[in-house]
């Protein structure tokens, strides 16, 4: 029983990380119809930025978060401006282009920093555990869960309660007419892409104490994040949240009931089954190219 409770908790903290990665993917897909295959590398850049800040500047994970968000968002902004923006009318090519960008980023880090695993210390402030009966929760994982909820809330507010969000929703529904009312669709797209990249960066920063920081770390994570987006329903914030919990917990449960590899197979089989009956995910929304 204790094992299961603790495993569920670990699954929840993994789900929180997945949620932040998937949110960025979902926003970028929902807004622009772009499947961003470089998203995992944005996570990886976030992790390396955190490592670099800690190693060379002595800045811990928590104060590094805003810096990482801004720097990865800047990378995303440049990628959007230079490559993606020219390909909006060729959706299939954006997949290839972003995949290529991902490979370039991965190799650049491998050449610049090295292929060996890097370690980042968790914040001393959150080093202990909180115990409730048999349930032992690391304070850091608790923080990650709360933080991802806050990110979800902030994203929801940004999308539904701000003028930027309203402009974005207008552009998603009808780009031409939005431009006829003064909305700079290109600018809206750039900011949205940068925001999604920034979220990936933060996820990468938060994952560093839990995961080894290597150039290929993003690839596995982004696959799970894609599964979250597909299961949740493309472009749906609530769907992404529900699906990340579902997939995080399913992975955690299966890996104790069977083992990691078979658990993985079981999760994938479950998703295939779910997509068979709900092809547009749990919470489908109207999206428009």
């Amino acid at each position, binding site marked *: 029983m204790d094992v299961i409770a603790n495993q569920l908790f670990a699954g929840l903290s993994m789900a929180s990380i997945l949620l932040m990665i998937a949110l960025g993917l979902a926003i970028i897909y929902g807004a622009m119809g772009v499947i961003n295959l470089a998203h995992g590398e944005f996570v990886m850049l976030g992790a390396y930025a955190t490592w670099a800040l800690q190693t060379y500047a002595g800045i811990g994970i928590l104060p590094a978060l805003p810096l990482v968000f801004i720097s990865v968002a800047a990378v995303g902004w440049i990628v959007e401006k230079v490559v993606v923006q020219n390909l909006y009318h060729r959706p299939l090519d954006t997949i290839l282009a972003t995949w290529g960008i991902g490979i370039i980023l991965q190799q650049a880090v491998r050449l610049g920093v090295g292929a060996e695993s890097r370690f980042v210390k968790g914040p001393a402030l959150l080093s202990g555990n909180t115990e409730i009966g048999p349930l032992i929760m690391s304070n850091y994982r608790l923080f990650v869960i709360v933080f991802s909820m806050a990110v979800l809330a902030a994203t929801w507010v940004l999308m539904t309660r701000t*003028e930027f969000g*309203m*402009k974005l*929703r*207008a552009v998603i*529904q*009808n780009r*031409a*007419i*939005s*431009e*006829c*009312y*003064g*909305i*700079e*669709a290109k600018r809206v797209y750039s900011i949205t892409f940068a925001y999604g990249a920034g979220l990936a960066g933060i996820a990468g920063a938060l994952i560093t104490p839990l995961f080894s920081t290597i150039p290929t770390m993003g690839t596995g994570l982004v696959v799970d994040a894609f599964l979250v987006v597909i299961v949740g329903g493309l472009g749906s914030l609530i769907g992404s949240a529900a699906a990340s919990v579902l997939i995080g917990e399913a992975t955690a449960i299966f890996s104790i009931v069977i083992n990691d590899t078979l658990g993985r197979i079981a999760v994938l089989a479950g998703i295939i089954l779910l997509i068979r009956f709900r092809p547009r995910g749990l919470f489908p929304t*109207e999206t428009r190219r």
Partner: protein
Amino acid sequence: MENLKARDLYSYYGTSPVLQGVSFDLQQGEFLAVLGRNGVGKTTLLKSIMGLTDRCDGGLAFGEREILGLSTPQRSRLGIGYIPQGREIIPQFTVRENIVMGTFARTDGSRDIPDYLFDMFPILKEFISRRAGDLSGGQQQQLAIARALAMDPKILILDEPTEGIQPNIVKQIEDAIVWLNQERGLGIILVEQNVPFARSASDRFLLLDKGRVVLTGKSDELTDDLVEKHLTF
């Protein structure tokens, strides 16, 4: 108020020129009706003014400013209010959000909705919090006009605003267009199939065929014979 001046305007979708050398003037506060059969380029003319076609050649000036090199949002901020064919309100937005969207083209940053819009179309006030997609066609058209007016435009360009709309609302919309032109001094370009209304409301007309201007003149010169010759199928 500003004037709009087109000189030898060509407009393309891909490589095919839909407009081929169109020239016209819209004086300050003038009402210009654009007439013609289906597929002669009337909608394309309005889209070209907003920069929504693939490419344009020739000259297009708004006031003192050449605007062919400007992006669509830049043109809208100069004060060109476009009411497209089929209304194209945002169905998932509320009525209020749709009208506020019009103010995004204002240069003074104001997000206030002018009161006179609700005097003109009281139904919009009643339905202010409803989803725009749930409105009837006629109500959506009123909303589309209100959205364009919320930007405080200098001229309005309207694409068949009464197409497919119940008759009692058609009258309201026509009265509103005339009122905007006469009482508020807005320059208007109206694409219209309803020749009697276009003739009575407009100062001048522009008759298009196959992407060219075949006839232009004062609206009272638009005789039934000319209508018969150029506008019947």
